[in-house]
């Protein structure tokens, strides 16, 4: 048997001892392919993301002439061809506020039920399925439901109340799901420790589980606020209208809508400006779109920020 030549001697395929670590031709090809794959996937991501940034920038530019404090503060004037967006803005706040009052308690309690009380049986599976499907119902069908159930059947008529209820039913599933996730992040060991001390389920939830998940729940609720603010279809037939005369100053302008009144809403207003009203300057339309988008992105940013803050403040 021939002894292998020592490193450094002629005939040894490993002249400087580093050949083992030098990439072979096959490996170089693979590395090239991997780099190519990386660029391809990055490219796909950028194709998605870059145009949106470009569009948003373009919209900002178009809206610039109109954006000012008074834009927010003034009511639409002169058949929407001038003025601001105060009435729709307040309307959106109203709708979102009331829908939250209905949806948050029910949603949080339902989330508590699913995570803390529900047993593992077919009924719970049915509830879970219902939540999932509720989340998938098209927004226009929510609008039809709201019309049939709240406007007609419950006799609310087209009103802030009916529209808020419709929005509440729409935002319910996401609040339920995010509550459940927040609750399930609390380790089981804590609950068991409390049960063994004779604490009842509710007492344990109230004293240990909820305080440690409230921020996660809040994150979900805030996120839903942003969704409710942007929706149009559910409120189209249940309470939001083309135009409502609203006081220009004074106390009345802060609370222009009672529960049985029809209202304007920012999302609907944008739709109206873009498709129904005529002679509306483009800057005004862009301005409305930018304010709506900005509002929603700001609320979402708040929710995301809250989530990051939470992660850094874990108590276990």
């Amino acid at each position: 048997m021939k002894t292998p030549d020592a490193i450094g001697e002629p005939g040894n395929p490993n002249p400087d001892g580093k050949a083992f670590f030098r990439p072979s031709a096959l490996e170089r090809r693979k590395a090239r392919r991997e780099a190519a794959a990386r660029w391809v996937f990055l490219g796909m991501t950028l194709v998605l993301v870059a145009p949106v940034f470009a569009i948003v920038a373009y919209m900002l530019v178009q809206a610039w002439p109109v954006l000012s404090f008074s834009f927010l503060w003034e009511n639409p004037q002169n058949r929407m061809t001038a003025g601001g967006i105060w009435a729709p803005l307040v309307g959106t706040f109203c709708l979102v506020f009331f829908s939250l009052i209905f949806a948050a308690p029910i949603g949080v309690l339902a989330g508590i039920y699913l995570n803390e009380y529900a047993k593992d049986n077919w009924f719970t599976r049915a509830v879970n399925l219902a939540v999932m499907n509720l989340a998938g119902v098209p927004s226009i069908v929510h609008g039809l439901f709201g019309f049939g159930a709240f406007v007609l059947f419950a006799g609310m008529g087209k009103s802030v109340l009916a529209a808020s209820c419709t929005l509440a039913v729409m935002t319910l599933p996401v609040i339920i799901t995010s509550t459940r996730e927040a609750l399930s992040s609390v380790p089981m060991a804590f609950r068991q420790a409390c049960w063994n001390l004779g604490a009842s389920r509710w007492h344990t939830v109230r004293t240990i589980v909820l305080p440690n998940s409230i921020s996660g729940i809040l994150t979900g609720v805030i996120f839903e606020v942003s969704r409710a603010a942007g929706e149009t279809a559910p409120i189209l037939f249940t309470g939001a209208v083309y135009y409502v005369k609203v006081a220009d100053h004074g106390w009345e302008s802060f609370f222009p809508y009672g529960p049985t009144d029809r209202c304007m809403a920012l999302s609907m207003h944008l739709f109206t400006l873009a498709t129904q009203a005529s002679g509306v300057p483009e800057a005004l339309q862009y301005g409305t779109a930018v304010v709506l988008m900005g509002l929603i992105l700001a609320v979402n940013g708040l929710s995301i920020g809250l989530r990051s803050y939470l992660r850094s403040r874990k108590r276990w």
Partner: protein
Amino acid sequence: MDAHIRFDRVSVHYGAHAALKELSLDVPPRQILGIIGPAKSGKTTLLKCINRTIDFEAGVRVTGRILVGGEDVYRSRNVHALRRRVGMVFPLPVGLPLSVYDNVAYAPRSMGIRNRAELDALVEHCLRQAMLWDEVKDRLDLLGTRLSGGQQQRLTLARALSLRPEILCLDEFSIAIDPVTTMKIEDILRELKNEMTIVLVTNLVQQARRLADRTAFMNAGQLVEVDETERLFEHPSNRITERYVNGDFG
């Protein structure tokens, strides 16, 4: 001898699997009963039956009678009251995400005790009993989850003692903590047996030998033998017991 806890032909089934099979056992009062046995012998299940935390397991079926203080636990009007009479310490130390003070005060507070002076006295008493007072007395607002494993286990003990239970159950309390803390807790148990009945499940045979007045040996869901500790270890009447205490298996 009157039994503080009595198991009367108790069987526990998880679905088709039987964790306890027709088990009958008397636990005498004011003593340490050690329970030894290999894994999956049903020791933890037995403990869970005493305070009915077995109820939380899915698909579980319990037959037979379990009597605590002469009263059937499944007939008691208030299961939470039962659990307050039985203190439980788990294998893994658990500090609640509250301050040390609030950890120990948790159970009394849930019973409605609000008087600050009373709570202060109670917290100190329990922390002293658990040999944790000296280490935390200046830092009572420290978060329970930030203590070391050994400290958290003693904190669990202090919590369990905060309601002055009649019965204290420990389930392999030493597997996740350091030997020094283990020794401390063993000393505590020797003191506590004057006040309460202690059921000590352990996989450390020598620990049972050190601490228990009587020892029960369980295997595969059945009670094989129960006797005074020394007699069980020196002259076990059952062959399997002999093999186990000699370390032949488990």
